């Protein structure tokens, strides 16, 4: 289907001249985008690029089946345009964001309100959706929650225990990370990218490094490859990040249904996996490892051997602890048919990552859009149908096994060569996209350089941006007392969304 698209095609982790991106008047642009989405494309990014006093909208699509990305833009305009959301729900937050940032009004958008904008000392939340009726009551939770967790506000409309609607208002973590990138890269850019979502450091850092590599000019052509050894190391670090977080999630899910043995064990094993990342780079979250042009620290033979040994121990303990979890009927019963999202809903809202794969969708950047080391060593896509908490936990459990196997295979076949190559300056007026499958799903970075090769626009889409809507759908008709386990089964990032 991508063969006949009027969009410009580009593979993951590549760039193309900004002038080569097709541009249409906004009406035609929205119609064409809608057409491609109807044909099965997926919306990865939708954002504004200011031009004089007007703004262009840029759309980045993924044709997963054809393993290609595609990009197009509107001509600059101001004021209103026909909303894409009216036909394609997956655009709803993107259009709210563009409205908030650039004032472009998506006409017909059913729920146009701020995303993260500051209103003095709190986010400008706007009015919440309300259900009226004699038996209906409203429950407001947050921004500060009961546990050690990031802030966000949840507004439930309930009839008794049943949740009729949940509206999620975020923005509390808004640090201005994306705006800070304009005119960059700056001195602080790398460390800011590493902390966009601090539990997803490797995925975001790899996406950023990939962007810088695909922008680096060689003989007037952009795109420089990082040395293979560093690509191999990034792939290892990415799976360690996935393992730590997935095991933490399994423990948290166990904790929320009061199954303490698995909770205690997984809580500790999670730390063991974080310590494996620290073995490579000194930091439990992988800070300082991935750099544009390669990696900063090497994984020498002795260190790799130690890593493998400790990995095997941790994986064996994981298998045991997760085994208790699945063996307990009391756990299974709490997860089955709770927090349902149908495959149709997941497709409609553009869900990604384990949450999408838990609805049976075969959707994984490592497989659909392989870049870096994943071109040579793939990970199978772990899918489980059902769309309930059970399925989301099951996908994590399968991915823990697959990531473990992947790491064993990779550590057995180290790649020789340099760790880092110097990058040339970014090519001016160039557009680059990098997708990385983080542990929550698709991490998308998009960059556009100006005439001096600095960032004219840099867009970051954490998987949470796609998936928060999934949590609201999972709560429809569910009992409000099931919210904690539903929330844990998604375990989305607040700061990754708020940026």
């Amino acid at each position, binding site marked *: 289907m991508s063969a006949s698209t009027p969009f410009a095609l580009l593979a993951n982790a590549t760039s193309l001249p900004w002038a080569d991106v097709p541009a249409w008047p906004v009406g035609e642009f929205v119609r064409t985008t809608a057409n491609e989405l109807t044909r099965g494309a997926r919306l990865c990014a939708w954002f504004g690029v200011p031009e004089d006093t007007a703004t262009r909208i840029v759309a980045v699509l993924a044709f997963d089946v054809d393993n290609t990305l595609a990009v197009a833009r509107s001509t600059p305009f101001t004021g209103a345009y026909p909303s894409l959301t009216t036909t394609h729900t997956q655009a709803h937050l993107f259009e709210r964001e563009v409205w908030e940032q650039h004032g472009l009004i998506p006409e017909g958008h059913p729920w146009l309100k701020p995303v*993260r904008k*500051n209103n*003095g*000392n*709190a*986010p400008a939340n706007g009015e919440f959706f309300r259900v009226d009726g004699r038996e209906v009551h409203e429950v407001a939770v947050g*921004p*500060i929650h*009961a546990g*050690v*967790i*990031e*802030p966000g506000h949840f507004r439930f409309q309930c009839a008794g225990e049943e949740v009729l609607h949940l509206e999620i208002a975020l*923005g*509390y*973590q*808004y*640090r*201005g*990370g994306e*705006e*800070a990138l304009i005119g960059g890269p700056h*001195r*602080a850019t790398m*460390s*800011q990218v*590493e*902390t*966009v*979502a*601090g*539990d997803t*450091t490797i995925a975001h850092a790899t996406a950023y490094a990939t962007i810088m590599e695909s922008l680096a000019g060689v003989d007037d052509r952009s795109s420089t490859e990082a040395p293979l050894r560093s690509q191999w190391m990034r792939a290892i670090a990415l799976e360690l990040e996935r393992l730590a977080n997935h095991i933490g999630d399994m423990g948290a899910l166990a904790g929320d249904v009061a199954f303490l*043995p698995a909770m*205690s*064990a997984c*809580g*500790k094993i*999670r*730390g063991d996996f*974080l*310590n494996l990342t*620290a*073995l*490579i*780079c*000194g*930091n*439990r*979250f992988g*800070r*300082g490892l991935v750099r544009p042009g390669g990696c900063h*620290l090497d994984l020498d033979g002795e260190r790799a051997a130690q890593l493998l040994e400790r990995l095997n121990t941790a994986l064996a303990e994981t298998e045991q602890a997760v085994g*208790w979890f699945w*063996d*307990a009927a009391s756990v*299974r019963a709490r997860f089955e048919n709770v927090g349902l999202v149908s495959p149709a809903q997941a497709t409609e809202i553009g869900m990604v990552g384990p949450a999408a794969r838990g609805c049976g969708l075969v959707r994984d950047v490592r497989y659909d859009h392989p870049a870096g080391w994943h071109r040579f060593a793939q990970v199978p896509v772990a899918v489980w149908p059902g769309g309930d908490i059970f399925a989301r936990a099951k996908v994590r459990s399968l991915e823990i096994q697959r990531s473990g196997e992947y790491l064993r295979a990779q550590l057995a076949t180290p790649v020789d060569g340099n760790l880092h190559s110097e990058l040339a300056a970014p090519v001016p007026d160039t557009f680059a996209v990098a997708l990385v499958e983080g542990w929550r799903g698709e991490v998308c970075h998009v960059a556009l350089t100006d005439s001096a090769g600095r960032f004219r626009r840099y867009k970051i889409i954490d998987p949470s941006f796609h998936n928060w809507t999934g949590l609201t759908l999972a709560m429809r008709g569910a009992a409000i007392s099931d919210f904690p386990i539903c929330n844990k089964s998604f375990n989305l*990032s607040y*700061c990754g969304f*708020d940026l």
Partner: protein
Amino acid sequence: MKPPQSMFVIDTITHRLKRGCETMAYPDGPAPALPDRHGGALKVDASKCTDGCSACVSVCPTEAITRTTRMIAHPESPVALDLGRCIFCAACVEVCPPQAITQTGDHRMAVRRPEDLILGEAGREEVRLAAALDEKLRRLLGRSLRLRVVSAGGCGGCEADVNVLGTIGWDLSRFGIQYVASPRHADGLLITGCVSKNMELAVTKVWDAVPEPKIVIAVGACAISGGPFVGNPQILNGASSVVPVDLYIPGCPPHPLTILDGLLRLLDRLDNPSRENAANGQVS
């Protein structure tokens, strides 16, 4: 494929017994080793700075190191490294030709005053570790410290390593320290994150809700100074911009051991001497 098994209470107990006690011996026993590439706290001996060199200043991503023009004119004037801004990337250590900036491998970094994190001058090469809370407040708290953890513009890193102290490996509750759900139940706040403008109201409210007397602990570079986001217009550059802070624990994020050391230091629960005392020969 074997059919799903049923698990009984006795299995659960057996599993638990098999794993045994997994809580570390520290602080009665030795502290667990930091990862060899962690590096620990930094030490800055400005007297080693070469004339006019400011290599470290330009590589620091958070502008934690300053050396003003006036200072370059007077080479004996120290460079100053603010460990509260430091994200421990070690870029300065790598570029420093005379090795004026070095890693100590020491996990202990918590201080009571932000100026105790400024390193460089003679006699101030290392952090001046935190003293315990005064006797009266410690007596009031008794054997317990209950904290309301508030993430305000944090990335999830500090939150994760604050959280990990509650797991069986660290078992924070054996020290009488607990994270509680309500500020009304708390003796103080533990704040992570740079304090985004969007969290200012919430942090003010949660502070007001904690009954007196109360303390505040700032964990991580963001909560101390803004960290990687310092200077961004959407943030307030740390907890002390909104509430009075009693303990600063540096790191990005601080290692769990560093956080635990800070908490225990504040409660005077560590038998090992502070570095100052050790330097004065008052080893107890």
